[in-house]
């Protein structure tokens, strides 16, 4: 066997080690983005999660002005973490609706009393059905929906203060 061929196993090993080292240093992003971004919202009609607020229908979201749809749950810790950011967005006049995943009215009431309530409507999604229909893979997630009910952007994971300018820009572009 020629000299060059003998080097093949070593080259393969080096390639493998380099690949493993690269992924250890820079882990892959585990977020699964929804394929529905830039497409129309799927039709859904969720009952009200609280007696004091309306539920959420897909037709509510083609309302002539861009809105945020926040997917949250009272049992989700990062959702409490992003609450101040949603409150700030509401203060700046952003319309926010919500889908509460696998939740009960009592738990939602306690959660909103503790963390503030930025929502106009809250739909109750007790079996994650609409969450799956939207291509959402967890809580919290936030969708930017334009004036015609087309999804323009998806934020996977909690929003932070650093996201506020981006969200406002997305909403302005979705008019």
């Amino acid at each position, binding site marked *: 066997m020629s000299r060059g061929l003998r080097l093949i196993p070593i080259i393969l090993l080096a390639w493998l080690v380099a690949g493993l080292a690269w992924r250890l240093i820079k882990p892959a992003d585990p977020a699964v983005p929804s*394929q529905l971004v830039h497409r129309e919202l799927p039709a859904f009609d969720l009952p009200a999660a609280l007696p004091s607020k309306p539920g959420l229908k897909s037709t509510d979201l083609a309302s002539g002005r861009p809105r945020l749809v926040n997917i949250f749950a009272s*049992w989700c810790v990062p959702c409490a973490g992003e609450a101040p950011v949603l409150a700030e967005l509401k203060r700046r006049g952003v319309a926010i609706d919500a889908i509460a*995943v696998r939740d009960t009215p009592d738990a939602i009431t306690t959660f909103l009393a503790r963390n503030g309530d930025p929502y106009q409507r809250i739909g109750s999604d007790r*079996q*994650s059905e609409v*969450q799956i229909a939207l*291509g959402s893979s*967890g809580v919290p997630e936030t969708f930017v929906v334009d004036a015609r009910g087309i999804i323009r952007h998806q934020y996977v994971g909690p929003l932070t203060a650093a996201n506020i300018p981006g969200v406002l820009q997305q909403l302005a572009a979705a008019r």
Partner: protein
Amino acid sequence: MKYLVLVALAVAQPLLADSNLPPAYWANRQLPNPQQEAEAQALMVELRCLVCQGQSIADSDAELAGDMRDLVRRRIAAGEKPSAIRAWLIERYGTWISYKPTDEPAAWPLWLAPIGLLVVGAWLIRHRIRLRAKR
């Protein structure tokens, strides 16, 4: 103090990031029709769990996986084809959600690898036989 820490560890409860609702009806229940249940099982082992990435929804204890099993079983019970359910999920989550390899260009190395390895193997064997014949 040491004992106090030990006692505290012994009685500590894990913090569960789970909802307080029970699993969906068909999450952990088989369909009464064995043929439909077999179809549902075959599909569920090929669908990837969004929470415990790397497990199938058939293997995962995550609540979202339970809700997806419920969705698969309900749709199969309603007469929907497994391929249609898979396509519906791929439309939402991309091919990521399915373990079944597709024919898109990104998957070509996967299909070509066995052929490539066979060619390399055949070449190696030929080389060996020639070496032996020379001796």
